[in-house]
């Protein structure tokens, strides 16, 4: 996160140094700053900025695809006269711990195909998810973990 702010600052600095702030100059500065931040080693070891950015891009692409699929599937369900839904409410034990992780996880679950986050448990260890097309709890938990939670934690940590 701090690295991203540094990246924006470097882009601004590059454009200001060139004398006129246009979108082309800002874009060039951003690319150069990205390369710098991804290549330079920090005092803790090699920089993780490149892999981190790649994980964020993968998360955004996956979630965007999920939102599209969710809408197509729910649209089919609503528009055809017969209802095939088999709703259920499952408890999902999550690995996310901090506030930001839990918030983002519930946000993504609400937009993911056929699922809707209903409640976070009191001890913040589990969320309750309303599923539109239910199978079993184990299958659902495994799918959610592999498709959403592991990419999310990889992008955040």
């Amino acid at each position, binding site marked *: 996160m701090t690295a991203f702010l540094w990246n924006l600052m470097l882009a601004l600095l590059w454009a200001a140094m060139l004398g006129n702030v246009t979108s082309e100059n800002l874009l060039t500065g951003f690319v150069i700053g990205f390369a710098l931040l991804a290549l330079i080693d920090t005092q803790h070891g090699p920089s993780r900025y490149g892999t981190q950015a790649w994980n964020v891009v993968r998360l955004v692409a996956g979630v965007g695809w999920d*939102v599209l699929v*969710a*809408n197509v599937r*729910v*649209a089919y369900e*609503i*528009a055809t006269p017969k*209802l095939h*839904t*088999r*709703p*259920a*409410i*499952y*408890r999902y034990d999550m690995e996310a711990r901090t506030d930001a992780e839990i918030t983002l996880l*519930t*946000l993504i679950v*609400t*937009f993911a195909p*056929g699922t*809707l*986050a*209903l*409640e*976070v*448990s009191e001890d913040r260890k589990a969320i*309750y998810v*309303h599923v*539109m097309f*239910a199978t079993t*709890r184990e299958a659902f938990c495994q799918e959610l973990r592999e498709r959403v939670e592991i990419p999310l934690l990889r992008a955040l940590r």
Partner: protein
Amino acid sequence: MKELITAVLLVLGALLMLLAGLGLFRMPDLFLRLHGAAKASSLGVGLLLGAAALGLGDVSVVARAALGVTFVFVMTPVATLLIAQAAFRAGIPLWERTHQNDLEEHHPAGGPYEPRLGPDGEE
């Protein structure tokens, strides 16, 4: 080309809004209605704002549309979560074909709300 993309975004957004209304109309219980309302309407408003930004072609409109899409996509899950909690506390019945309910074991649905009141009805 720009007009074509605008038209596609408009048609998709209007269809999604229509689906959100239809889902609200014919789904059997509150939680299934929330599915349609939360997903379809937020994506529909996002697409329509995108169409307006592209069709009007103004930088300030693009910025405002981006801001609006962000707001809608952040606010909708929060509203959904709070509505669901209120519904559970009020004991809204689930559809009879809901075949498993883990939340019920956690705290019983329709459990009457017990405000912590003193003997005189004061806190």
